[in-house]
């Protein structure tokens, strides 16, 4: 089932009243499948945040179609099922962390006040900012703001969670935790769609990818599919006569052949790793390419 489907989305902006319109999104087509984590990649200014704002109805679109949960247009019942963390989380800084969650929760969730309060506290504990629940938001650090932003996106237990740069501003521990949180949400049956500049996080957490380049979709499909397209290297670590060795394979097929060969030679396969630079290489290759027609389906 498609949780989010964007078809032929186009968006133009006027910089000033008398200037001509500038095309920001040329033609965006992609879909996000249920119970997956889909990464949304693109260089600065490629149109990621504009696409997200169009998807969420914050800015009107010029043409195209955006539907949620198999064909439903954006409406208030649909918004109840969506959680969103903006790129730079600005919140009401006169509220405390707990008050903020209760405010957003009461707007979106159908829970009783007591249940909502316990869910808010639970989320604050999980994100490690429970001790700061009674502190005003204006006293929070950037990382704490990101965490409280994450909590407000999840307070109403949404089915689709859209995160714009969720790892930005987080320390390494928090990044690991947010990554685990995204994985656990997918396991719970939620759908995650998140934009990021951190390719390592996307590779680690996502099964699917949408790559934007200059307002066009340069790639939409599985992470593996993209890696296969650039024939990413795989590192096979094996043991032979108590000695550790490494061999590289340029494609998945070659990797299989190598493993078969090594096993026939009674070698023990210790690990098979994707070359860490491979998604980065793939991303660079895709975004440097002038041919943007090589899309694949999910």
């Amino acid at each position: 089932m498609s949780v989010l489907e964007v078809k032929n989305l186009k968006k133009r902006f006027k910089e000033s009243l008398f200037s001509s319109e500038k095309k920001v999104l040329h033609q965006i087509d992609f879909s996000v499948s249920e119970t997956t984590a889909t990464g949304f990649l693109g260089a600065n200014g490629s149109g990621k945040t504009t696409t997200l704002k169009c998807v969420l109805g914050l800015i009107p679109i010029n043409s195209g179609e955006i539907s949620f949960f198999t064909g439903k247009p954006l409406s208030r019942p649909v918004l109840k099922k969506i959680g969103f963390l903006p790129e730079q989380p600005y919140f009401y800084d006169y509220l405390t962390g707990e008050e903020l969650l209760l405010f957003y929760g009461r707007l979106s969730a159908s829970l009783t006040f007591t249940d909502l309060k316990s869910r808010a506290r639970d989320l604050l504990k999980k994100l490690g900012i429970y001790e700061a629940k009674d502190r005003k938001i204006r006293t929070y650090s950037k990382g704490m703001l990101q965490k409280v932003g994450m909590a407000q996106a999840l307070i109403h237990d949404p089915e689709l969670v859209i995160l714009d740069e969720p790892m930005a501003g987080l320390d390494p521990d928090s990044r690991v935790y947010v990554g685990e949180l995204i994985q656990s949400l997918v396991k719970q049956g939620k759908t995650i769609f998140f934009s990021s500049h951190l390719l390592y996080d996307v590779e680690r957490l996502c099964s699917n990818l949408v790559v934007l380049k200059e307002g066009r979709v340069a790639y939409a499909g599985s992470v593996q599919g993209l890696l296969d397209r650039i024939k990413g290297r795989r590192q096979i670590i094996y043991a032979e006569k108590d000695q550790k060795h490494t061999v590289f394979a340029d494609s998945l097929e070659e990797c299989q052949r190598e493993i078969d060969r090594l096993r026939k030679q009674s070698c023990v396969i210790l690990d098979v790793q994707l070359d860490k630079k491979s998604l980065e290489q793939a991303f660079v290759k895709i975004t440097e390419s002038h041919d943007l027609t090589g899309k694949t389906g999910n």
Partner: protein
Amino acid sequence: MKNIFLIALNTVKEIKRHKILYALGAVVIFIMLAGLVLGPLSLSEQTRLSINFAFTSCHIGLILISIYFASTLISHEIEKKTAITLFVKPISRLQFIVGKFFGLSFILLMALCFLTVFVLVVHFIYKHSIGPILFMAMWGIFLEALILLTVAFFFSSFTSSFLVLVYSGLIFIIGHSASGIIFFVNKMEGDYFFKVIVSIATYLLPNFEKVNWRAHALYHNSLVEGELLFSSLYSFSWIICLLVITSILFERKQIA
């Protein structure tokens, strides 16, 4: 209704925690006290001067609270980008505007009640009789503050908070000068076209003198029959019209 209530409640919290509210309150009380201190200097006019100071300080205080907070409440949501997180929740922009209006109106009502107590104290000190006209004068101040609130909301839907402050201030000045302008223009000879243009312009803007009953309260003049009802209806017509126009404009606004 729940969403309007939540926005209103949040607005009350926001204003309540703002130091400027208390600073404005302190300025108003200072002006009232100044009236009490300066009163004896005016010899026979002591009572009139002090009561006039009390009414004027209430008027200025309520108008400043109204314009300052109305000009920042909506503009800051856009400028500080808090609107992005809010409008991805199941809430309409009309509910947002109406919620903000009720929140600030509640603060104005509380401020009015608080300041009325001070005005009554000044009346007691000078043994000036207290009649219904005093409360009508305070009601007039409240209506004026509500109109200015919606005027500031209207400007907030398309310009920055600083310009909202400037434009609302201008509307306040013109709104108090409208009656005078019409009076002098009618006294002018010739140039019929100019007279019509000025008259139309003054009718297109709120006339705050229609709710100014402070002089009546000072001199114990009663209002013309039906004036209270007519002026209240006049004020609420302005408030509703401006809220509707603001909502329509805000609906089209790009939250970026």
